[in-house]
């Protein structure tokens, strides 16, 4: 560091402060990793397995719980508590062989009966992903270590779901316990240290002895520190207080890099407009495919990427990511930026004077982004009015309050998952429950999987882009940073790696 007046001042102050003697205490260079500190951008919703959330919260659960199956970083299904799995011919009956001799941290044994209960409780629970098991009609313990699931229709994503929250296995003792939300009892690699934990701030885990898979216990102790504030998170990174974290914003990547962190990028979400009222139920104009296409043409995706996310992403017009079978590179450029074409389309649709859309504006994203997009759309004759909303935003959104709105949705690893998330008539993000015969026909083919399923998913992608159900801007890079003592392998479709893919660097 160059000597500067500020530095001189600091040195003077240092002389006055007796506390500085202990400032070299954080052993960042020690050889044996004692502890992993993970910075978490989201808080844990609940420990109750039946109500659990996933996505950004997956790390919390992966520390304490086992799932029936696991997915590796590339999305391949691997054994978890279930060692073998097989479907029948009709693809509606799934048999799982369970690992023997597994116990929960409270000593209770894990068996088929427990697994069945966990599955049914999740299906009927309050998790936002409860619908992931909606195809399961029946679950049965055939014997102590065999579970059989009966489905009402084939579900190509079921195995993946069982490696997520739907497959979480909690001790039956917690099922009706009052403190299930705060006191997890799982069979996983770590147990929660309740003494050291501060709910909604810091969660501390210690490695469990005699865990069946010691290979995933890479640290004796893990601390997951929740940073509600982006600035605080960045300060923690700059101050070297975390080993690994998922940054709030791409604007912080440069800071993290200059603080000596490795930056891992991977496309996670697509950011864009959901043109939800494609049936024209509330806003007639949005029901017209030409209007929706006009909106797509009105977007200068490159410019938006640079302006809003500093280039950390890839412009696209499709909602399926490159890791998905449905992905088609050509579709990224399906709607080049063309305000004139946009106006033409509007005119053809019968809106020569343009249209006006009302969109929700929240404090979750910077106001500047909203105005930037609104300004861009206005050039093509599409005026956007802001409606300011508070915490009821999500509920209203899913209730269909706004025909079009801006959001960022996960790019699921499997096309079927994307379908379940945002396309199926009963999916959460198809907020007006729009049902399209073409889409449904393709979905039936996807459901059966195989080559034809993959082909159908590509057709679906093409159809959705052509019909302009969405107006994506770009695929946003998820940014995970690791310090010098840590490495992480990115997991397809998700922001954070699997817990066991975060490893010490020797």
């Amino acid at each position, binding site marked *: 560091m160059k000597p500067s007046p500020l530095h001189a001042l600091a040195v003077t102050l240092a002389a006055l402060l007796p506390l500085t003697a202990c400032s070299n205490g954080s052993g960042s260079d020690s050889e044996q990793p004692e502890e992993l500190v993970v910075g978490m951008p989201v808080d844990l919703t609940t420990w109750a397995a039946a109500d659990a959330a996933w996505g950004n919260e997956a790390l919390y659960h992966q520390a304490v719980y086992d799932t029936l199956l696991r997915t590796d970083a590339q999305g391949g299904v691997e054994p978890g508590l279930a060692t073998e799995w097989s479907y029948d011919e009709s693809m509606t009956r799934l048999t799982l062989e369970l690992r023997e001799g597994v116990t929960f941290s409270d000593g209770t044994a894990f068996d088929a009966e427990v697994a069945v209960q966990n599955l049914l409780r999740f299906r009927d629970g309050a998790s936002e992903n409860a619908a992931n098991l909606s195809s399961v009609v029946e679950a049965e313990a055939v014997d102590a270590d065999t579970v059989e699931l009966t489905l009402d229709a084939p579900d190509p994503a079921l195995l993946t779901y069982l490696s997520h929250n739907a497959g979480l296995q909690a001790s039956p003792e917690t099922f009706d316990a009052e403190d299930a939300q705060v006191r997890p009892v799982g069979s996983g690699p770590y147990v929660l240290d309740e003494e050291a934990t501060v709910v909604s701030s810091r969660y501390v885990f210690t490695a469990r002895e005699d865990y069946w898979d010691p290979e995933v216990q890479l640290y004796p102790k893990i601390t997951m520190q929740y940073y509600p504030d*982006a*600035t605080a998170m960045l300060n923690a990174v700059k101050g070297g207080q975390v080993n690994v974290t998922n940054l709030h*914003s791409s*604007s*912080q990547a*440069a*800071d993290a890099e200059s603080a000596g962190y490795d930056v891992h990028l991977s496309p996670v979400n697509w950011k864009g407009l959901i043109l939800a009222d494609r049936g024209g139920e509330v806003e007639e104009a949005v029901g017209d495919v030409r209007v929706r296409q006009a909106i797509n043409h009105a977007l*200068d995706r490159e*410019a*938006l990427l*640079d*302006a*809003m996310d*500093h280039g950390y992403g890839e412009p696209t017009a499709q909602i399926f990511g490159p890791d998905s079978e449905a992905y088609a590179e050509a579709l990224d450029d399906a709607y080049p930026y063309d305000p004139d074409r946009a106006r033409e389309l509007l005119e053809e649709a019968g809106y020569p004077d343009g249209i006006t859309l009302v969109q929700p*504006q*929240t*404090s979750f994203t*910077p*106001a*500047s*982004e*909203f*105005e*930037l997009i*609104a*300004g*861009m759309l206005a050039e093509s004759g599409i005026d956007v009015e*802001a409606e*300011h*909303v*508070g*915490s009821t935003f999500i509920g209203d959104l899913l209730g269909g309050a706004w025909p079009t709105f801006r959001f960022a949705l996960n790019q699921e690893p499997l096309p079927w998952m994307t379908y379940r998330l945002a396309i199926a008539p009963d999916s959460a993000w198809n907020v007006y429950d729009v049902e399209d015969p073409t889409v449904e026909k393709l979905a039936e083919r996807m459901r059966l999987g195989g080559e034809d399923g993959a082909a159908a998913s590509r057709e679906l992608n093409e159809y959705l882009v052509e019909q302009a159900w969405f107006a994506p801007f770009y695929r946003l890079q998820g940014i995970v940073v690791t310090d010098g003592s840590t490495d992480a392998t990115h997991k397809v479709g998700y922001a954070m790696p699997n817990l066991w893919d975060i490893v010490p660097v020797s």
Partner: protein
Amino acid sequence: MSTPASSPGLVPRLLRHPLGSPALVFVVLAVAVAVAGRWLAPHDPTATSVALVMAPPSAEHWLGGDAAGRDVLSRLVVATTYSLAGGMVVAALAALSGVTGGLAAGYFGGWVDTAGAWLTALVMSAPAMVILLAARTAFGPSLWLSMAVFGALISPVYYRVVYNAVRAVCGEPYVDAARTSGLSTPRIIARHVLLAVRAPVILVSSGVVAAGIGMMAALDFLGLGSPSTPTWGQMLSEGFYDMARNPLLVLWPSLALGLTMVALVLLGNALRDELEGTSAPAPDGRRAPWRPRSEEPPRVIEHGDADERPVLLSVRDLAVAYPRGGGWTTVVHRSDLTVRRGQVHGLVGESGSGKSQTAFAVLGLLGQGGRAVAGSIVFGGQELTGLDEARMNALRGRRIAYVPQEPMSNLDPAFTVGAQFTDPLRVVLGRSAKEARRTALDLLARVGIPDPERVYRSYPHQLSGGMAQRVLIAAAVAAGPDLLIADEPTTALDVTVQAEVLDLLRELIDELDMSVLLVTHSFGVVADICDHVSVMSDGTVVESGPTRSVLAGPRHPYTRELLAAIPRGNPRPPLEGARP
């Protein structure tokens, strides 16, 4: 006494204030920008352009563009309007509820007062952030709403100030006088009470506006602002978001915010200085040297004096002055005084004649900044002017003693009589705690206090005025001083008590063989106890001599006038037709 805010020349006075003038100018400028912001802004502050995202300063866009590609300068200008208006809303709402509440509670008292105090406590114990957030979730993110709620939350600031001012004013006879003039309550409040709270309200307001602007910035920082309203705080928090890419985006709003708040606070300080008259006097370096008055006062008229006792105190050509503005206010000009051993010397004059200041000069205890600027004070052969602190202390504790005018205000209310009585005995005279206590109790008994033990343990407010004066006299004579300076020692007492205290003084003088310089305005007191008298007028001793001689044959016109003015006490004849 408070000077009203409207008195001519507050603005000129502010402009002369060293920190007030730049602050005032800045605030006026900021307000002008706020008012004209809409027209001043070179570009549409909400227009976005991808090309302008994070653009560096250019000829077209002086301060460049922000993260959304908006013109930073235009936003800064328009944000001034919203930021200042937000601060104003805070102040307006806080003032509205605080002033109304404070007025009502202070004026009516009783249950209104109780209710007001309780409501204030309620508002103050409510967690501000939670309330702000709850209001925000309830009614949506509106800058004005948040500011109004914040205004309500800090209204106790006004409430307290107004309440205290009103309480003080309501004790003033002029409010009683208004009541007895037949003014209605609303009119009394409007005409008399409001006038008195105006100054403190103006003072508080500049701080509250600043607090409001600061709060707005904090809310924006927490992401709780109103995203559609451009404010400095919002620009700042957006700037923080992109600090690594473009630190200038933090700089501009910080400057606007910081300078405005500093200006407001400084303006408030300057206002306080000017309204409360606490502006610091110019430092000595810049003060013109003291000069005597141009016209020489006439010399003292000395009556013939047979007193041959040795001189104890000799004051010659004494002048006392206080710093005022860049110069001096002279309160004593050329004062001459001779006090002999064993003499009781009365120093008579009207208020403002400089008699007390002469006495304080002898004690070396002139008020803040005051000093003996000319002449000499010789006590027991020692020159007192220019004597260092330690030596003066040694004299004060032992050889010169002082009895003040107001017995109650001259005892420290926070300490028992015993504590403040014995402390000087131990520190100055080096007595042990036990000795000091015995001395004190003996002296308390000596000055005629019936139950010395009880008084020793008492706090001043538990004593009557006469009792307190006896305590002060006992404490003054504890060291057996050569000279006792008594400044109107009986003026605050009832006549019957006055007579007793004068008797006590007379006895002590005989007993301890001390000289007394007795400052008084009453010739009756002089006639009662003094063997010598000096008359002061307008800072000068005009006549001096033995009491009998001066009272019987005053020679100076002023003395004559004074003696003639004493109410003659001619009885008024009974009214015609009075019943016996």
